[in-house]
């Protein structure tokens, strides 16, 4: 497969998915995994979860993960193509949703009394909830290959919900546990 073909697959895939990332970026992780690992084979399962950890730990919105998927897809054509594909992937995932959001932020308050707006506000939440749990299961399975890893994930989840400790602390602890060889 040529570099251009890979680039096009990446751009098309993320343009297509953009408008379905409801409730925040995480809802698409399952779809990303399906496309990047199963359909196109841009990345191995292990690379996918490594890069996900990297995107979560690095500063900035975690949705930048898409750029890393693009980078991985382009990597076999060299670092230059990897970068081009990476930036393009991020542009592709953001462009459609940003255009919609731009229109929405201008008009949202004018639609205050529209039943469409009310149904949209209330109706989409439960769908998002279902997607989020489904995505969480996929992430847990992708990221974790041992009981200890599952244990760490559940502990992080518990402490994030029940305490005000910065997530950075848990990232640090889990990273350390990883380096010391406890996670896999």
């Amino acid at each position: 497969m040529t570099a251009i073909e890979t680039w096009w697959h990446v751009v098309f895939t993320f343009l297509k998915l953009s408008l379905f990332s409801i409730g925040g970026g995480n809802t698409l992780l399952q779809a990303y995994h399906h496309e990047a690992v199963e359909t196109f084979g841009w990345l191995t399962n292990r690379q996918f979860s490594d890069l996900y950890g990297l995107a979560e730990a690095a500063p900035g919105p975690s949705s930048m993960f898409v750029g890393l998927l693009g980078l991985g897809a382009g990597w076999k054509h060299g670092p230059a193509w990897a970068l081009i594909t990476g930036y393009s992937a991020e542009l592709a995932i953001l462009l459609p949703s940003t255009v919609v959001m731009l229109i929405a932020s201008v008009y949202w308050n004018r639609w205050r009394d529209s039943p469409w707006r009310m149904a949209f506000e209330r109706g989409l939440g439960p769908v998002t909830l279902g997607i989020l749990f489904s995505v969480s299961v996929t992430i847990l399975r992708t990221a974790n290959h041992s009981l200890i890893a599952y244990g760490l994930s559940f502990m992080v989840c518990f402490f994030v919900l029940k305490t005000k400790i910065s997530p950075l602390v848990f990232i640090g602890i889990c990273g350390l546990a990883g380096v010391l060889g406890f996670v896999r």
Partner: protein
Amino acid sequence: MSDTSDTGLQLEQTANPGLRELFVCMMQVAFSAFGGGMSLWSHRIIVERRHWMTSESFVTGLTVARLFPGPNQINMSVYIGSIFKGVPGSLAAIAGIILFPFTLLMVLGLIYFQISAISEVNRLLAGLAAAAAGMALSMGFKILDVYKTDYLALAIAVIVFVCLQGFKFPLIPVVLISGAISMSLYWPRGQRR
């Protein structure tokens, strides 16, 4: 660009940040918030420190940002940018929140593909991925809390979950169909307009 004073947004402050300020402020948000909790940080910086918006208008923005497709924080910067400077403001805000963090991430990504043979790096990332998985799971529980007495919402959520995890249906048709059904079930009654 279009005058934004007619959008009905009530800003009590007379803040009027320029494009450069929008860019710099969103970049500050992005770099303050690594490891998650970005909406917390943007509230702290935009509302508490710079007094650009009231807390109420910030929360309205966050709601719209969550409802519409796209990453929450990107959508939130679109919203904030458009309030002050229309479309150019949105673009400046997005650029601020993503340009440098993304470039840094690309560099880290290149390093990863270059040296992923080193086992310490792999082990570190395995640990980070476990933490990230835990945080993803916590998002679901946070939203679950909102719906714990709404049985219709819980039923819809369970059906969506089973369609995706149990039957492995693809996301796009699941969102389109369940979204339409859910919207019709939550259609406001007796409030025709």
